[in-house]
């Protein structure tokens, strides 16, 4: 069950992600932003719905496609945009960039440029909660491609034997760069891999907030009761190329357009109107506020200082290590 307040939060969060990334894209295209930028647009329902059930004390691990996770976990758009631009005011003081955003104050243990790299780290987050006997849960976000890494299998097995409070959320967007899932992956539904580890597995429509919510609520309840992990596969699609400039020879424009019809934001907006939960005016107002928030983030990032090169050796270690 999603109450109205939470549903509006999910809607706003999806919009926030969308509008943030639209701006990141245009900054990239106008050479104001560089590096590897992987857009989450089209997949927003997953991060928004999953994180609507988490508290700041709950943990997530994220991926190279991590802006959505960061924002849904409560990350400040300004700090996120500043990080994408490599500025001192960014989450990681410009050291990490798009693929390495962390936000410990909101339980975001970090994005990761190594496919599958975050999965065992999430298991460690859940292990810490278990050892400390807190009621925190951990969610590990990762792609379909990551489910072919050893870390996925080793991580799930560990979580299963130790009955850790963790939910593995696989965002299956049909491709790992150019390679279709059916070419790289032995199973049609990645959730069936849960059977190998004797834990529950679900495949849901990753563009449907209600479907995601239902299995997530069950998984969280299970985690909190000490019954162990759950694997949730959310079927979705990324609208843009793997990276900005990707020629996308592996799919047709029609396929992309068909998926755009299944836009989670559009769907939820229609739901609000159909159910008379929100009026058009109210929805417009929400959009206006978020547009402003995203614009402010861009302005903040552009006006922020570059890091000082003389500080480059800070934080290699916690102390000064001479050689």
């Amino acid at each position, binding site marked *: 069950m999603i109450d109205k307040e939470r549903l509006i939060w999910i809607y706003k969060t999806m919009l926030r992600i969308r509008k943030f990334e639209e701006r990141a894209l245009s900054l990239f295209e106008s050479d104001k932003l560089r590096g590897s930028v992987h857009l989450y647009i089209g997949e927003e329902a997953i991060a928004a719905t999953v994180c609507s059930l988490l508290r700041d004390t709950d943990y997530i691990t994220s991926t190279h496609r991590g802006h959505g996770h960061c924002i849904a976990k409560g990350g400040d758009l300004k700090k996120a945009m500043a990080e994408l631009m490599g500025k001192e005011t960014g989450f990681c003081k410009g050291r990490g960039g798009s693929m390495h955003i962390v936000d410990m104050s909101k339980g975001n243990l970090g994005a990761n440029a*190594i496919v599958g790299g975050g999965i065992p780290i999430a298991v460690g987050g859940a292990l810490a909660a278990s050892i400390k006997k807190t009621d925190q849960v951990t969610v590990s976000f990762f792609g379909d491609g990551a489910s072919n890494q050893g870390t996925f299998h080793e991580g799930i097995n560990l979580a299963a034997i130790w009955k850790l409070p963790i939910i593995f959320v696989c965002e299956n967007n049909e491709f790992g760069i150019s390679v279709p899932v059916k070419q790289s992956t032995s199973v049609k539904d990645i959730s069936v891999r849960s059977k190998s580890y004797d834990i529950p597995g679900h495949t849901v429509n990753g563009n449907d907030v209600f479907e995601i919510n239902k299995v997530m609520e069950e998984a969280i309840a299970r985690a909190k009761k000490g019954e162990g992990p759950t694997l949730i596969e959310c079927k979705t699609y990324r609208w843009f190329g793997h990276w900005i400039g990707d020629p996308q020879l592996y799919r047709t424009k029609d396929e992309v357009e068909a998926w755009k019809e299944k836009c989670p934001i559009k769907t939820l907006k229609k739901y609000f109107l159909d159910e008379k939960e929100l009026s058009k005016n109210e929805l417009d107002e929400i959009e206006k506020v978020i547009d402003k928030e995203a614009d402010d983030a861009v302005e903040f990032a552009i006006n922020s200082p570059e890091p000082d090169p003389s500080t480059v050796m800070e934080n290699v270690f916690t102390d000064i290590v001479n050689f």
Partner: protein
Amino acid sequence: MSIKTYSQAIKDVIAEEMRKDDAVFIMGEDIAEAGGIFTCTKGLLKEFGSERVRNTPISEAGFVGAGVGAASCGLRPIVELMYMDFAYLAMDQILNQAAKIRYMFGGNVKIPMVIRGQQGIGRGNAGQHSQSVESLFMHIPGVKVVMPSSPSEAAGLLRTAIRDDNPVMFFEHKALYATKGEVPDDPEYSIPFGKANIIREGKDATVICSHLYVQKALNEAEKLAKKNIDIEIIDPRTLIPFDKTTIIKSVKKTGRAIIVHEAHKIAGWGAEIAATIMEEAFEYLDAPVLRLGAKHCTLPFNLGLENAVVPQQEDISKAVKKTLYIS
């Protein structure tokens, strides 16, 4: 001779070797239909089919290990790592398996395998996608380490790598793919391992460098020449095996040596060369051997910070002058 880019040179040699030897095949991420994200395998699928040009899942330990197994069973795999940083995921298969199998099994097995891919800075890819990791592979016996710095070197060294009966780590540089140069048309053109390349002859100091620093050293050499400083530039081409003879001979002539690499300075390959020079040419040295390498720091995303971590072109001249006691 043909003018080719570094990536074209690589692709052409792979294709030529696949035509000549059915045992050669290639696998890696996004290398088939997409032709590799740096286009080094473009068109190979069409010519050789999906048996010999294989997309792999994102399973580095798995497919590098499968390469080791296939090599021990008579094939000659070329395994592409999209980024050499991902070799870490397959470290056991490379350094505990590929590197050791021949020795541990008393010479009964050989592993004719090339692991190739790009590394280094230049695309704002941050800490996990910008490293120069070649030094790590020099420390463990059993793998050869190759560093091509130009299109013709890439072609000649890759052919030797594919024909070598040992595991070869072949380090390309992402910022070199688009560089163009003359490449011999001879389909047998190869460069032997362990033969350094004297890029420029000079008498005052020896600069030993590879990848991007070859061009940077050449640029500095011109500036230094205007000040009557004449440097010799040597590209070792392969780090294992290593051409000690050429380098020692050069240092005996110039009395000064500077090693420059993008890899971290601490325990980087420059240290090994410096120590070798000290052991074999100490009495010829007129100044301490200097090393330029990346600071002991993760490669940062921000460009200004990245530049603060890796040696800059001007640092080469500064180091040369330091060995000449010129301020």
